[in-house]
């Protein structure tokens, strides 16, 4: 994984043991949250599958011979969702890592729609993440499930409406 700079905690063995002291643990969980967000942002990952967390070098430092146990991974995931840094997907099998907040994503999508003059017309979700016109956008290549989460957020703000069987969207000004 070239380029990603691991934080100092990643080579600190206690980082991989859930700390019993609550103050220490809170700090540890914060560190994990920022590491996961940074890692996912760097690699443009939005969905983290917890099932194969151990296979990922994010949770498994092979040089240090330390890895975060699956229970601990779940605990980190819970901590992140509690703090608005992630959302559960597929039950508790994976999380949507919010290295950019929901609102920011929503704004990003809405801004694009206005700029592209898509307001009041319907476009498909597929178009947004895979279409030729969006290749330069940040949300290009997003998982449809993730996109829906962001659009639902917009819908709650009254700035978009999901149409059909959640396959299309109509943006409002």
């Amino acid at each position, binding site marked *: 994984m070239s380029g990603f700079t691991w934080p100092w905690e990643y080579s600190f063995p206690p980082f991989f043991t859930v*700390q019993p002291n609550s103050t220490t643990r809170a700090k*540890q969980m914060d560190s994990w949250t920022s590491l996961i967000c940074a890692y996912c942002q760097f690699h443009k990952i939005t969905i983290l599958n917890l099932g194969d967390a151990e296979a990922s070098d994010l949770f498994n430092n092979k040089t240090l011979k330390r890895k975060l146990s699956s229970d601990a991974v779940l605990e980190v995931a819970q901590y992140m969702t509690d703090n608005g840094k992630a959302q559960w997907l597929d039950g508790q099998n994976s999380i949507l890592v919010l290295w950019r907040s929901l609102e920011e994503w929503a704004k990003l999508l809405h801004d694009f729609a206005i700029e592209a003059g898509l307001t009041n017309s319907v476009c498909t979700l597929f178009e947004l993440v895979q279409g030729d016109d969006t290749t330069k956008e940040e949300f290009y290549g997003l998982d449809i499930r993730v996109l829906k989460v962001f659009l639902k957020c917009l819908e709650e703000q009254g700035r978009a409406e999901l149409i059909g069987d959640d396959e299309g969207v109509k943006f409002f000004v």
Partner: protein
Amino acid sequence: MSFGEFWFGTADVLLPMERVIGVAEGVALYEEKQIIFEKGQLKLTNQRLIFVGAQVYFMNLDRILKVSFDAGSWTKSEKILVAVSSDLTFRLSFRAGGCKEVLTKLEAALRAKEWCYGVARKGYGIGVGGIQKKLQMQAQQTELHISSAFEDLSNLMASAKEMVELSQRLMLKSKDKGLTDDETAQFRSQLLSIGLQNSEGPANPSDNQLQQEIGRVLLPAVEASSGIISLTEAYCRVNRARGLKLLSPEDLLAALEGMRHPVKLYTFASGLRVVQLSSLDEVAWMDKIVSLLEETGCLGAEQLATRLKTSAVLALERLLQVEADSRACRDESINGLVFYPNKFLTGAS
């Protein structure tokens, strides 16, 4: 003299203290050259020769003057010649063999002369039966000793109770006569030293003396092990110093519970109780461990124990204490539990 004077009819039973030492089948009995019984069983016991044929006859071994061996030939069986007087010899013809064997045993029995004292002798007897009897006797003896010992003990306890009562009466009287507190204390301590404790009544002044003694004994040990030792070690050290006047664990604990100086009882968060130097500065101690952690990078309980010259259990307790104070954090791996300085809180520096 003839057969009837030496051999007597009997039932085929053994006498008390009698045991069979040799048996041969197919034996014939002759008086000189004249056959008396053919084909019988010969039993040799430690007291008699018993001939079991159609009838049972026996001869006491003490009647025998001399035995000798007749080797026989290919037509004649081997024989034992039993001389009972200068002119009378009985012959035992072993037609089915076994002559030599019986002869050896007979000679041995004659030498042993067990009949002389076999019955009369007061003892356990010989052989397995004898051993069993001996063990039985010993068991009885032991039981006797034990029960008498317990009797002694209950007597002692009864008299101890009397002595405590007596001491209380004396104490009351001594107060009237204006005995000083010092003298009362001395009296009490003397009672305590013989193991009598007044469970009721006010706090025993002699506890003080005991505590002083404990303090004196434990202080060097505690100082040598970085200000803390386990209760077990304290118990051993105190009793080693006391020699024969042993202190029970309960008494030691009770004395320690009341102590404040120079050592005191300390209970860790885990419930482990230890003897700790009263002057021990908790904060300074934790600082010391934290600086050790920073110096070495990380420490396991064993490593810390070596550095502090204390036991691993106590070192672990110390580390847990530092961890609880948010100044250390743990790394649990296949290499065991290791503690690091809490960089989560202090940062990477």
